[in-house]
């Protein structure tokens, strides 16, 4: 399993680097010099790596887990079932993308109100109260802390822009805040 993914990564790397080197060929001399100067050796190394992992992969049963690289996560606790690990990894990856898309569409303020609520209530199964209070905290941080106190502008998301509106929350908050200004 480990070897198979190593081979897949190796193939991806070789493809990517070959493309990078091929793409660079078409540039003027001074533009392509550096990309090629590092591109070729790195491509060569990636081929070596692929060959090595293929060789390891073809070797029967002397499966050997390479020593872990210095990486924080290498040191995990008690092992979890691989299926569970895969499911949760997929879940959280989905949420990472969902947060990015949500923030893009709604902006940081409204997105910060909506996304954590959905995540906490429906994925983490917190209570509605916890979820809403939490998200309200996030919103207050962005609106009051960043936008008001630090004048750090957080533009509206794409939906508001597409509809030709200001950030959704400004219709509610601005009249209130204008009272204090």
């Amino acid at each position, binding site marked *: 399993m480990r070897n198979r993914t190593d081979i897949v990564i190796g193939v991806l790397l070789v493809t990517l680097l070959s493309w990078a080197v091929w793409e660079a060929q078409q540039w003027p001399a001074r533009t392509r010099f550096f990309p090629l100067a590092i591109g070729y050796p790195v491509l060569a190394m990636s081929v070596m790596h692929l060959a090595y992992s293929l060789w390891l992969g073809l070797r029967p049963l002397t499966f050997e887990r390479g020593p872990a690289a210095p990486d924080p996560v290498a040191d995990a606790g008690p092992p979890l079932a691989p299926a569970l690990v895969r499911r949760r990894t997929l879940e959280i990856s989905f949420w990472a993308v969902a947060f990015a898309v949500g923030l893009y569409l709604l902006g940081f303020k409204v997105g910060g109100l909506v996304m954590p609520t959905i995540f906490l209530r429906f994925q983490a199964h917190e209570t509605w109260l916890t979820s809403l209070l939490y998200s309200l905290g996030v919103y207050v941080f962005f609106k009051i802390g960043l936008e008001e106190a630090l004048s750090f502008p957080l533009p509206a998301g794409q939906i508001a*822009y597409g509809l030709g509106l200001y950030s959704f929350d400004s219709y*509610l908050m*601005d009249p209130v805040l204008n009272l204090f200004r």
Partner: protein
Amino acid sequence: MFRRILFLMAGLMLLTSPAWGDAVADFYKGKQIRIVVGYGPGGTTDLTTRLIAPVLHKYIPGSPRIVVQNKSGGGSALAANTVFNNERRDGTVMAAISSSLVMKQARGVAGIKFDGRKFNWVASAFRANSACAVRLDAGVDTFADAVKTKKQLIVSSFDKGGLSHLEPIFFNAIFGSNFKAVTGFPSGGAQRLAVKNGEVNGFCTTFQTMASTEIAMFEGEGKCCRVLIIAGEGEDHPLLKGVPAAEVLAKEQGKSKDEIAMLKAMNAANQISIVHTLPPGVPKDRVEALRDAFAKAYNDPQVQALAKKQNRNLQPRRGDGVAKIVEDLLNTPKPLMDRIKALIEKG
């Protein structure tokens, strides 16, 4: 419930915005204007914007709140593209960008996704001229010397086709000097460090920079450099005594109309340095109101005093004047522009 309130609010906004009394004041009341600066914090574009931002609201009818957003990328092309194409066109979003983008548009550089003719230019802050300076030990005392001896003068430049690169190659082409522009220096500081440590013979940038931030290079006991030539028609400054002004020199030497036009094109961006603009489609009355406001803000005593403290001589230009220069540059005849492009390509 929430949605109902939202619609109610939106409806109220729509109802209140049409012209009752002063339309512009009514529009800006309680709103904010976001100025998208095309560079990161701390640079000249950012500092100039932040210099006037605190007083700007005083001069805009309805006194909206002014917020500054930094959006760096592509030498401010990203901010220009975004404000031109993807931001609200009601006068609540404007851009602070580099005027040299217009030259890029004129040259047809890829990635420029705006039309300088359609921008609603609001104001520019400085009317600078670029200049070239060399080290005292470069073996050249005057520009005439440099032309006569054809001595190679290496100058440190940023990127191809921008300020600090255009000057040496244009002067070479028109006057026959022998500058060699080495591009790739990452910042103004790095460009000048290479001059100070003697790695290169000189540098070209706006004279404004030379006379303010880098004045120590030109006067006092540690001085290392002298100005060789200044673009445009020259300025009145002690450092420029006996220094030729490119356009004057060109006329004296009977250079062709095209060559003088090239010198003008080279210097055009500096003439409208640090420029603020609104996207196309903003109602005319708001554009005019902001043009007035910027003009007044640049003349605000507080702004003037701070600029003076920073050794910077604000020479604002109103948006209509900016638009004129932009238009002239973009109307450069094609054959001439092709020649300019070829020059830049050659490096």
